């Protein structure tokens, strides 16, 4: 059993090391926003800030509306009509690899959308360059 004389300094050293990590982290500056490709096409169905905050909620609702209720038209707050389709509507303006993925990766989010939707799009930046074709565009994870 270690003596009391060596335990106390060890705890203090550990706490100091932990505090040092936080101290160094404080100095790393503001978080850099990822570089995203500007979407082309008509203006999005809501403001960018609103879409940034709640696109996942919207896609969730779209999913249930299209698949379960057979409802395929969405009316935006400004009254414009949109076809409910991730691949047909969202991805016709937004690039999956240069718009969706960089931000998801920066935020360590792994949405399971791509395991079925838009699988035959170009491979994500994380995928091995030589694995080619349609099998590699799935981010790891997904449904176990």
């Amino acid at each position, binding site marked *: 059993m270690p003596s009391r004389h060596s335990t106390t300094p060890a705890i203090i050293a550990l706490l100091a090391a932990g505090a040092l990590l936080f101290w160094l982290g404080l100095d790393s500056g503001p978080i850099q926003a990822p570089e995203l490709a500007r979407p082309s096409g008509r203006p999005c169905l809501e403001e960018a800030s609103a879409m940034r905050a709640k696109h996942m909620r919207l896609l969730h609702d779209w999913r249930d509306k299209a698949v379960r*209720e057979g409802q395929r038209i969405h009316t935006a707050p400004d009254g414009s009509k949109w076809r409910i389709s991730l691949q047909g509507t969202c991805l016709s303006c937004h690039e999956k690899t240069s718009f969706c993925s960089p931000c998801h990766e920066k935020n360590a989010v792994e949405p399971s959308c791509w395991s*079925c939707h*838009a699988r035959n799009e170009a491979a994500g930046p994380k995928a091995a360059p030589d694995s080619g074709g349609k099998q590699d565009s799935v981010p790891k994870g997904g449904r176990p």
Partner: protein
Amino acid sequence: MNRSRRDFLLLAGAPLLALSAAPQAGHALAAEKGRVVRWAMLVDTRRLNTQAIERMARACHRAHNVPDIPGRQDVKWLWGAEVRHAFPESCHSALPHALQTRAVPLLCNHCANPPCVRVCPAGATFKRADGLVGMDPHRCIGCRCCMAACPYGARSFNFCDPAPYVSDPVPGYPMRERGVVEKCTFCAERLAEGLQPACVDASGGAVIFGDISDPASAISQALARSLTLRRKAHLGTEPQVYYIL
């Protein structure tokens, strides 16, 4: 005293009367808005053969990115079988051999009383108001209870990642992933755009699809003209795919 009590009871009963009348008004409103659509399919097997069914299956599988996996793990939405295997309880040895071995296309029957929906513990498979038995792969947990419950073998399980086995993926339709069940959806995505199901388009007029709640629809008229059979109707699942043999 008695009088006021009676008045009170009458007064208390009045809202109940209003409540009991409200649903009637709702029904009247629904009737005004129009009938509920009920999709069904009628297959005239006299006008089909193995090649035609193969063509229908290809059109279906291509439109929905259904993989072609060799061996027992294959996934199918529409496939062909002989009459004697599809309708074993209606066949007997005195039936002409040509009729017994005639090819019929098989698919999900979109039962009005679907056992798959009853057993699904995740609510992943469901019956829509228009009669479609839908499948929500987002919610499927891969337990395969629906496959055990379906008397028609209309459901397939993705034992492996299907993507490598889809030779020419259609970009507009999603794929499935390993561990989910899939089946025919009566082309819900095409119906939403006012199109006929892919197999109907590929059948050369041998398959009629439409609304059986509308007596004027082509399918209702054809059903009224002929003797039609449904697969394993004695099980009480009320299949909505009808066959003329």
